[in-house]
């Protein structure tokens, strides 16, 4: 079920009531949370719960085998079983059609007429998130970063925990599993703050992403014709705001709902559109994925420890695979490749120029942040466009002030410009701050006014249970 639905409202109220009920054992509460999480997932497509069970069973068994294995070879074999099983499930559901399609194109290119069979497979929602999360458990044990948990209940809950099950943040076992061991200590105001965070997340998703920005992005990317540069830019800016508010909104609801239950989940976004440079951007955008890729792909590949040439290769490989993680399409590979190139160029420049006094001035920081935002926007075109040709046409129009159709009415032009400006301003102001600190300094009545107004805007926007963009990944 999606967070922005009546079903989730009733579901969460019942879960919360049971979780905070007096006189119920901690174990019973955990069992209830596990069952609720299975129900949460089954509400999309019941048979796919079996995938959660398979992932849970495999990594539970494999991590124990890795831990007790005495030889390096045995440890490595069991680790490969986990990676193979998880990537196998992911590959079958997510990349099967893509691989067949490209194999057919390759065969055709060498003169072999071969027709790929129809690949009509439904993509289980959130599969990229929970396969990475469970794989991290076995990898942590293999890399001797952690020991296996002793409780199957706690591990099952870690795999299935509903607040972050389908779109992250991708939680590390060392961060979440220990929290299941004992009831959380009471913290005054935690429930109310958690609910306030959920309201903020709903506001980002329903009001800003779906209400203010999505119509403009959909109109531009679905135009099907050459666009005037102004509309190409407006559509891209709209999507940059939409995808941030959609995904950060989901993460905020996930963090808030977990907090209501007494659990802590780390930040997934830290005002990324105020990033100065691309390594800064990736410290602020989808933090749980970028750190996952760093710890389980970039570092094991050798990171920056095997010389400059290999560092650039590792960086590019990591970002290309990171792009492919988002979806089975060459557009995502291009998106990852662009980010990999940005990171490589930035690293190259930093190594040669080094830190300068000018680069630290306020003016230079703002200019660099704007360049970063500009280049990030170019990548969003490839991320959002369904076909490469559409993306290329838009980028060309954006960079060459191309002529073409105008598709956005004045209302959407005004809403996009106003909203994107507000997002950039908010990110700029919050760049070095934490939401918690800002909320603590504000008068209580102002916080109440903001929470009430956000909730009001969510309800009167009448969102239509639109799925979050990242569900498809």
């Amino acid at each position, binding site marked *: 079920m999606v967070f922005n639905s009546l079903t989730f409202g009733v579901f969460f109220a019942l879960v919360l009531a049971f979780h905070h009920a007096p006189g119920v054992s901690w174990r019973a509460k955990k069992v209830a949370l596990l069952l609720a999480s299975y129900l949460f997932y089954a509400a999309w497509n019941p048979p796919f719960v079996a995938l959660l069970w398979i992932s849970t069973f495999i990594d539970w068994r494999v991590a124990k085998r890795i831990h007790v294995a005495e030889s390096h070879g045995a440890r490595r074999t069991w680790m490969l079983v986990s990676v193979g099983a998880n990537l196998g499930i992911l590959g079958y559901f997510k990349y099967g059609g893509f691989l067949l399609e490209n194999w057919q194109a390759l065969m055709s290119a060498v003169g072999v007429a071969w027709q790929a069979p129809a690949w009509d497979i439904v993509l289980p929602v959130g599969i990229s998130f929970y396969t990475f999360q469970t794989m991290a458990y076995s990898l942590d044990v293999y890399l001797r970063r952690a020991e296996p948990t002793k409780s199957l209940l706690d591990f099952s809950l870690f795999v299935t925990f509903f607040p972050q099950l389908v779109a992250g943040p991708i939680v590390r076992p060392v961060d979440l599993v*220990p929290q299941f061991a004992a009831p959380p200590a009471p913290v005054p*105001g935690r429930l109310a703050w958690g609910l306030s965070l959920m309201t903020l997340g709903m506001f980002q998703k329903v009001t800003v992403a779906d209400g203010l920005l999505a119509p403009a992005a959909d109109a531009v990317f679905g135009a099907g014709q050459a666009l005037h540069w102004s509309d190409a830019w407006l559509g891209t800016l709209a999507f940059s705001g939409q995808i941030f508010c959609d995904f950060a909104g989901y993460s905020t609801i996930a963090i808030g709902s977990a907090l209501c239950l007494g659990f802590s989940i780390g930040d997934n976004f830290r005002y990324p559109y105020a990033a100065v440079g691309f390594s800064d951007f990736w410290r602020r955008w989808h933090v749980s994925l970028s750190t996952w890729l760093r710890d389980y792909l970039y570092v094991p590949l050798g990171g920056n420890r095997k010389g400059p040439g290999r560092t650039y290769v590792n960086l590019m490989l990591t970002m290309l695979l990171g792009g492919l993680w988002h979806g089975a399409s060459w557009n995502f590979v291009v998106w990852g490749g662009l980010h990999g190139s940005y990171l490589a160029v930035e690293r190259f420049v930093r190594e040669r120029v080094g830190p300068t006094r000018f680069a630290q001035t306020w003016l230079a920081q703002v200019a660099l942040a704007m360049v970063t935002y500009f280049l990030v926007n170019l990548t969003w075109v490839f991320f959002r466009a369904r076909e490469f040709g559409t993306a290329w046409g838009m980028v060309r129009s954006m960079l060459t002030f191309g002529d073409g159709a105008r598709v956005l009415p004045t209302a959407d032009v005004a809403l996009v410009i106003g909203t994107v400006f507000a997002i950039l301003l908010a990110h700029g102001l919050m760049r070095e701050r934490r939401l918690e600190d800002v909320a603590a300094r504000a008068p209580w009545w102002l916080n109440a006014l903001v929470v009430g107004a956000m909730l009001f805007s969510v309800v009167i926007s009448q969102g239509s249970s639109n799925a979050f963009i990242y569900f498809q990944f």
Partner: protein
Amino acid sequence: MPSSTSSSDPKGLGSPQQHSPLRDVPAGPWPRIAWAGVLVFALLLGGWEAYWRSQWFRPSYRNSDGLWALTHERIASEGGRGTLIVSSSRLLFDVHLEAWSEETGQLPIQLGLEGTSPRPFFSHVARETGFAGLVVVGVTPPLFFPPPGGERMSALALTKQWSPADRWSQHLSMRLVEPFFAFYDPDTALFTVLRRQAWPARAGLPPQMPRVRKLSTTRITRQNDMWARVELDPAYQKIARDTWLAFVNAPRPEVPPEVLKKGFEALLAEVGENVRRIRARGGEVVFVRAPSSGPFLAAENGGFPREHTWEPLLQATDAVGIHFEDHADLRDVELPEWSHIRAADTDRFTRALVRHLREALAAKGTPREELGR
């Protein structure tokens, strides 16, 4: 991507001492803030609800895809028998379901969808369900004869995949929200209201089709009655008429005659095959051309002459067709915005329509028990 490496110290995963740092709760009276926030929300929402009630809105069911899908489920739950209506908005608004039920003893399954070609839905009923009763197909020429499409094609997807969560949300909405709140209407959604304000025109942008405003209220049976404001508020009625005028006067792409001919032949083949399939399992199909007037009627008769569209359709399908122009009692209705019958006339129109269908089918030698008597 951050370039630091993670800790290599092994950590156990089972002991409470190894919790990751808890998120802090900002200082402040958060329970008080939450309750005050709820109060602010309630006050704002109360004002919003009062405003929309002052604008003629009353609580009613949403004409949603979910309600359509629940109505569609009656095909299976009622054993594929009875009467089923596939149509665009004309028969959705014009057929009074209770009157039909009184005349025939059966409540029709109303699957009409506004602004949408009924043909894909007719194909679905013929090819993907076992329906073997009476299918009433509404023919609104500008929606029926061109290539199929429309505003509400999304409903059809729910016949293939409707998640349990969406189904539960539909039931919750129909029990907890829709019967009580007037503001919960697609026409009063915040951004719909914002976007339909009189924004200055943008240079270089081709003329935009106006969005069709609220025209009806929906009951749980999917009975749609013309909204009182369309009938009684002259200013709002003018908005509705101006919207139709914009559609009627919109430039149409020039289509070569041979393409039109080929398309029409394909349409007849498709519809004919659907009729054949339904008859093969004991069902029957009738076509109904519901009333229109004013510029709408002129445009429909001009763009889709009866002798080149309606008559060949009936001939190709060997089906009964009721055209409102052939019957004085079907013409004797008021259409405040030229396209749909006012609420007060639908009862009389429906009873007359049932009578004509009954007589026509009997005359053809294929009387149907679904029409009673």
